[in-house]
């Protein structure tokens, strides 16, 4: 069973968002990590790039699959997780610990469009079916 953490926001494309002040920390969920298998590459944006809610900002690749990363919220990239460049497998080890980008959020009302842990858990169950 995939891990879901209380207190985070979740998107239907399986990204999580952890909010710290006006900074949003974005990564893929444990469910997504399991579905992809061994992650071999993470395509990340550059710092200062703009991201938009629901729009692709990068991709996570495994050997036989690739999944677009869609930003749960709009904003400006303030940090990318450079450790993933050399060790993309960190995502498989702990998807929540190993975030992908940090974004300065521009519109907090967008959080309302995201799921909470319980809703996301239900969503995954339905999807797995």
């Amino acid at each position, binding site marked *: 069973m995939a891990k879901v953490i209380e207190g985070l926001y979740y998107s239907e494309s399986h990204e999580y968002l952890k909010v710290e002040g006006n900074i949003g920390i974005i990564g893929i969920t444990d469910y997504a990590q399991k579905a992809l298998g*061994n992650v*071999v*590459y993470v395509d990340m944006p550059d710092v200062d790039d703009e991201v938009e809610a629901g729009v692709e900002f990068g991709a996570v*690749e*495994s*050997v*036989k699959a690739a999944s677009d990363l869609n930003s749960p919220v709009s904003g400006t990239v303030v940090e990318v997780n450079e450790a993933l460049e050399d060790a*993309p*497998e960190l995502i498989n080890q702990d998807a929540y610990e190993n975030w992908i980008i940090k974004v300065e959020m521009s519109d907090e009302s967008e959080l309302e469009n995201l799921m909470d842990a319980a809703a996301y858990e239900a969503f995954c169950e339905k999807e797995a079916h």
Partner: protein
Amino acid sequence: MNNRLYGKLIFELSKEGRVGYSLPGNFFGEYDIPASMRRAEDAKLPECDELTVVRHYTNLSNNNFGVDTGFYPLGSCTMKYNPKINEEMASLPQFQNLHPEQPADTTEGARTLVSKLERSLCELTGLAHFTFKPYAGAHGELTGLMTIDNYHRSRGDMARKKVIVPDSAHGTNPASAAVCGLEIIEVKSLADGTVDYDDLKRIVEEQGSEIAAMMMTNPNTLGLFETRIPEIAALIHDCGGLMYYDGANLNPMLGVCRPGDMGFDVMHINLHKTFSTPHGGGGPGAGPVGVREGLQEFFPVVSPYNGNFGVMMRAYAYILSLGSEYVKEVGPLATLNANYIKESLKDVYELPIEGLCCHEFVFDGLKDKSTGVTTMDVAKRLLDYGYHAPTIYFPLLFHESLMIEPTENESKETLDEFIAVMRQIAEEAKTNPDEVKSAPHNTPIGRVDDVLAAKHPIVTYQQMLNDQD
């Protein structure tokens, strides 16, 4: 095929000073390339004598499996026999030495060949014109879609940017549409794998004025004939769209049914499938595109000259060899072979869709799923028995897809042996599953570490050397 790995690289056989060529001396006088133009360092190419090169590539070839080696039931690829006479014809110097810019009156033979091949393909497909510019099947798809896009643009019908593709289609279809700047709409399949006509109708009702085309193979990727094709074509034509036929599965239609008669307006043919030209380890192929009368003026320029002319020569030799008498037997015999295998194995392999198939069919893995032996394992175990694997994990409609296409060239004895081996593997899955799961055992190499290759790509010899340091 030799089951011991040869494994060397030509660079590892190099020794400074050796040569494998002979060139004339310079009789032209002192014309030296000025230093300002020159590269600083020589390209680090190998230095080998001729025999070393010949042995090296001969040894490499011995670690390869081809149609001439053994049965190659790779679904959707139509690995038929590549006749030797085709090769002999394609190597004739009277064609090999033609520069593509040569004036027309000095290349009459070559141009006649092209037009004769075109007439034959028109007759076999029921279409009116072909362009030979596309170099491969995917290139043909793109060319066909560009032709369609050009047609709509010429009418000022700029809103037609959507292409309907069955959800079971090969990934190339949507990729080609995207490269052509078109958007994909997926139409659902029914449980039997054919297009859900009601879903299609809904799409057409909602978005009919934006539909550029519908792309289909027929038979579809499951080897099933779309019997409602006349209605589907009418539906698309009525909304102003065109019908595109992906010729990937044309083989079982030879002698049976022509895409033009089914209602298709544009199609590509994979000469390397239906018309017996060799796959060459992944190319060169050829993907000529045919159209209904009136659409030929919309052909785009996707290559400078006559496409892969050498491949066209082979296809023409094949058509001449079969002639009108035998070309019509191709489809029925390919279809009989596929159905024969299907009926002989369906008690041990899961057949999701009963009934007659065309040239290929799909099993959804072993019937007995309790052993944990997957389609991947079955495929790898087949290598141990001297067969190429079927296509696996495609189409995506089933979890354990195993897609088998035997072609018309295989004898009953070959099929019977293959059936026996497939049954034996099903038996091994019960009695000795570990043997199957760890297969292959009798091949030059075992299963490879894909993750290592993708995570840390080493794609040149220089990178390999750097990595060792």
